């Protein structure tokens, strides 16, 4: 007869896993701030047609260069002012959020899928697979992203989808490297061997045992890459290689505002601030998820 488990009298009945997780999430300031910011941007992007006071493409040359509300000449009709073609800046910023989020998300998905798959395979199978994947990673690292984008745009012409494809097909390297290392670590643990011993197929082991345990690292890399993709698109658009006017990409808006930088500072500052806040929010969320999801170690 096996001993029955008698709960020790002195055991402090601690909170459950779920409760602890919720507590960790709600006390992590960075995560909360980041999530809030991100939620705001997301809402703006989703509800753009409903929130934006004007059509972002509507030009009105009689309303050119009106400064934002807090300046002397500001007006409530255009809260953030207008640009050199009389387009309402607030509306353009709101619609610009769509572009940034779309780029960030799409590039993260494409490069994430490619890189994670490669990294998982290299880490799990080792040997020749690892050698081949490492070889490809090395080659990819030798390529400068901006120059390649330049070449592609020169051949094909710049547009939203070109940017997404180029960045997505190029920026998988960090995913691959991190997932490879994480997978190698997990691979050597006994529970993977135990799963193999139950007769589980390789896909089942990778998805059921390995993936959930490398997910935190994957999420952190995903957030870094999403932020990086957004900034890269802004840079490409600034250079004229990315999204084409009149789309309200924040990077394009900065490019167009360059000429008026010293007289109408807000034209650059507003989209610049929006970019910075979005990237900050994504990074804070990524860090926060990593911090919060680390399992509490031994016992």
């Amino acid at each position, binding site marked *: 007869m096996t*001993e029955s*488990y*008698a709960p*020790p*009298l*002195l*055991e*402090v009945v*601690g909170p459950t896993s779920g409760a602890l997780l919720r507590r960790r999430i709600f006390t992590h300031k960075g995560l909360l701030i980041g999530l809030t910011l991100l939620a705001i941007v997301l809402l703006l992007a989703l509800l753009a047609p409903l929130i934006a006071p004007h059509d972002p493409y509507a030009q009105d040359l009689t309303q050119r260069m009106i400064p934002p509300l807090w300046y002397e000449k500001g007006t409530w009709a255009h809260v953030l002012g207008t640009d050199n073609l009389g387009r309402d800046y607030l509306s353009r910023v709101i619609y610009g959020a769509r572009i940034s989020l779309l780029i960030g998300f799409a590039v993260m998905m494409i490069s994430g899928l490619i890189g994670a798959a490669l990294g998982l395979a290299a880490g799990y199978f080792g040997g020749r697979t690892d050698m081949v994947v490492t070889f490809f990673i090395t080659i990819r690292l030798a390529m400068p992203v901006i120059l390649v984008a330049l070449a592609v745009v020169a051949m094909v012409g710049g547009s939203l989808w070109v940017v997404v494809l180029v960045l997505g097909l190029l920026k998988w390297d960090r995913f691959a490297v991190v997932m490879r290392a994480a997978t190698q670590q997990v691979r050597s643990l006994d529970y993977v061997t135990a799963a193999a011993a139950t007769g589980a197929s390789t896909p089942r082991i990778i998805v059921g045992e390995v993936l959930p345990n490398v997910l935190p690292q994957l999420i952190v890399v995903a957030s870094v890459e999403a932020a990086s993709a957004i900034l890269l698109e802004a840079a490409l658009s600034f250079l004229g290689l990315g999204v084409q006017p009149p789309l309200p990409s924040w990077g394009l808006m900065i490019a167009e505002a360059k000429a008026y930088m010293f007289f109408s500072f807000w034209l650059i500052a507003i989209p610049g601030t929006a970019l910075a806040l979005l990237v900050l929010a994504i990074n804070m969320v990524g860090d926060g998820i990593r911090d919060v999801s680390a399992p509490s170690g031994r016992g």
Partner: protein
Amino acid sequence: MAPLLSVSGLTVDLATPRGTLHAVRDISFDINAGETLCLVGESGCGKSMTALALMGLLPNSATRRARHLAFEGGDLANVTPRKLASLRGNRMAMIFQEPMTALNPAYTIGDQLIEVHRRHKGSTYAAARERAIELLEKVGITPAGERLGQFPHQLSGGLRQRVMIAMALMCGPTLLIADEPTTALDVTIQAQTLRLLIDIQRDLGVAILLITHDLGVVARVAQRVAVMYAGEIVESATAASLFRKPRHPYTRGLMASIPIPGRTPPGERLGSIPGIVPSLIGEVRGCAFRDRCAFAFAPCAETVPWRADNEHGWRCTLPEVPAEAAA
């Protein structure tokens, strides 16, 4: 003759996200010059924390208090960090459990041995090197000269542990704290390493505080023993007395759960202690063992008295526990 190390009322608290963990709760013991005291207990009993507390190597989240803490006649409790650093590695040295990680992989054995000596004794390189060779040979590593230039990864676990012992002895300490020094080693190497420790004690007259969970090691190596459970010392005696007549139910339970080849009938159930170690977070009152003890009754929830019978002491509400101890 005053004891070499005198500990009275040592308490260590750790701040954790779930609350304060009382890792070591008001323990007292002495070690005399040249003797071996074994601190024996299972994981979480506080024995490693005790060692770290003595050496001043506790993590930042820990607070240490003691009524009285003296080493070589001088106070150890309120000493400045600088003074403590000059004692560590010099007058009292520590060897750790994992030989893989206790030596710095980026430096040669020789570098690490010589550094200790030069730092504390201010010796010349040549003098320190000579001492290193002397000690390597003493721990049975020959040819010592060649080994000085090797890196830790080039040595096996057993040899690394010997190097650690040599390093601990470089400055001629009077107290050696060994935290589970043989737990990570193979059985045959374990025996060899313990023999080495015994020989060293005999030759150099160094006192040893040996921390272990293995009662076999205790029986063969210790002169005196302190059994720890849940942060307290529950029994303290000479090795002979402890094994002849263990008093505390936990000690008895432990002894009953170890199979002895040739004595324990094979295939039969071993004695065991039901339940698990209680959590030491938050208020801890009364006997920490009561929920696993077959003889617990109401007074065990209050303060438990310390009993003594000559040199043999233990903490229990019952003056005498019946012969059939373990559940």
